């Protein structure tokens, strides 16, 4: 059984503090403080609690995702697919060059259990870390005030092959708790008409993807809408900013379906700026395997993320067998 190292609730704020390896995590009414050993001393980093919880929520619900999940320019995790590295300053030149960075590796179930305990204790009633800022309350701040277990136990919505197929994820509707989001009242809600040739009635399936996405209840949390072996279509609706800075360990493809998202792209190792990409409907971008990226969406936008789940990809990129770019220009 994983041992979660937690303090008693703070006598003033009501929040517990946590330790994970040599890292420690505490929060007050506005901020999270993370500490780690550096040069025989203890170094600390402070983040706004809402930003921290939104990042932590993604890391937990995505199972540490592909590669690097940077909570900000200092703190983050790297998925080693069986273990997870928790780092502070490792991918920040200022800390790394000054030998003030720190990395510690944990078994995945252990770090996951600790992160879930932090999320559970620090998320107050009325705050949903998956929601856009305009769609949730400000109860994340202040003293401990209840919890929101239902919100933080959400997972990325998935399917075995495609929503709407027998024994697969259900299509979204008012009846199953997916009303149309306030940003998409004009999205056509008709499902496609399929006219199959005789004998093929059970072999043809189609859905209205825009309808499906218009009913997404969260932001920056992709759903899976088609699985074809290792090819995953993960469309999503995005509003405000991606709460993490994702460092790729493989090539990802982005297809902008509506509205606009601006991507800030930097070097994966150092964070040095590499590009700013402004995507409008119909634009397609390949995010290389050697960058980190963060998206900004001023209005809720639809985005299709195409993921490659082929086993062993990170090692093939690390070894140089695969180029970080899908093509050479």
């Amino acid at each position, binding site marked *: *059984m*994983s041992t979660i190292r937690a303090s008693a609730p703070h006598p003033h704020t009501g929040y517990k503090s946590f330790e994970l390896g040599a890292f420690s995590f505490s929060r007050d009414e506005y901020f999270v403080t993370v500490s780690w050993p550096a040069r025989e001393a203890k170094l600390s980093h402070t983040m706004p609690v809402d930003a921290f919880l939104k990042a932590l929520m993604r890391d937990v619900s995505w*199972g540490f995702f592909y590669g690097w999940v940077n909570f900000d320019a200092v703190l983050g995790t790297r998925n080693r697919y069986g*273990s997870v590295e928790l780092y502070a300053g490792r991918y920040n030149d200022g800390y790394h060059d000054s030998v003030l960075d720190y990395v510690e590796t944990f078994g995945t179930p252990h770090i*996951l259990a600790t992160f879930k305990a932090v999320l559970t204790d620090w998320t107050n009633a009325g705050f949903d870390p998956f929601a856009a800022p305009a769609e949730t309350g400000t109860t994340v701040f202040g003293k401990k005030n209840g919890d929101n277990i239902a919100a933080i136990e959400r*997972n990325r919505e*998935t399917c*075995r092959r495609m929503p709407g197929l027998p024994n697969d994820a259900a299509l979204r509707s008012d009846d199953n708790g997916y009303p149309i989001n306030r940003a998409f009242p004009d999205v056509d809600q008709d499902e496609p008409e399929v006219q199959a040739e005789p004998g093929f009635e059970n072999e043809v399936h189609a859905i209205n993807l825009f309808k499906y996405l218009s009913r997404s209840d969260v932001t920056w949390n992709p759903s899976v809408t088609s*699985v074809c072996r290792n090819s995953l279509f993960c469309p999503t609706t995005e509003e405000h900013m991606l709460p993490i800075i994702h460092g790729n360990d493989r090539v990802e493809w982005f297809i902008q379906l509506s509205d606009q998202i601006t991507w800030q792209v930097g070097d994966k190792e150092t964070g040095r700026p590499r590009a700013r990409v402004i995507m409008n409907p119909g634009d397609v971008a390949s995010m290389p395997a050697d960058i980190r990226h963060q998206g900004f969406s001023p209005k809720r936008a639809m985005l299709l993320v195409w993921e490659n789940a082929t*086993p062993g990809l990170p090692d093939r990129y690390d070894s140089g067998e695969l180029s970080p770019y899908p093509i050479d220009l």
Partner: protein
Amino acid sequence: MEWQTQRNAPALGTPLCQLHDIPDGQGKEFVFGSGYHAFRMFVVRRGAEVWGYPNRCPHFSIPINVQQDRFVTSNHSLIMCANHTALFQYDDGYCIDGPCRAASLDLVPVSQHNGMIRIRSASARRDRHEIHV
């Protein structure tokens, strides 16, 4: 989809490997056929007991492992999908935590006799029970 109906699924009695080819507490993948329609399964071992499952997570329908033959947690207590950390019991493939909690891996019945692991005919699944990590 039942594993037997999949293209390239191995026949009953097909030998897989010797027991000692799988380190105690760990797993090993077996691939039948090649390319798109290859049938991929894995076997995990605890002592003299072995269990077989298709190499497909019920969460995303993608392979469980990212690195070759790495199917279990570092303390060898649970099967773990390396992609999104779904945790499954060795003996019945039941997911006790993670994004597909309460789902199960399909079972590919295997047996071990005189040190040889083979595909065997299906039998009743064991009762599910909760354990904790």
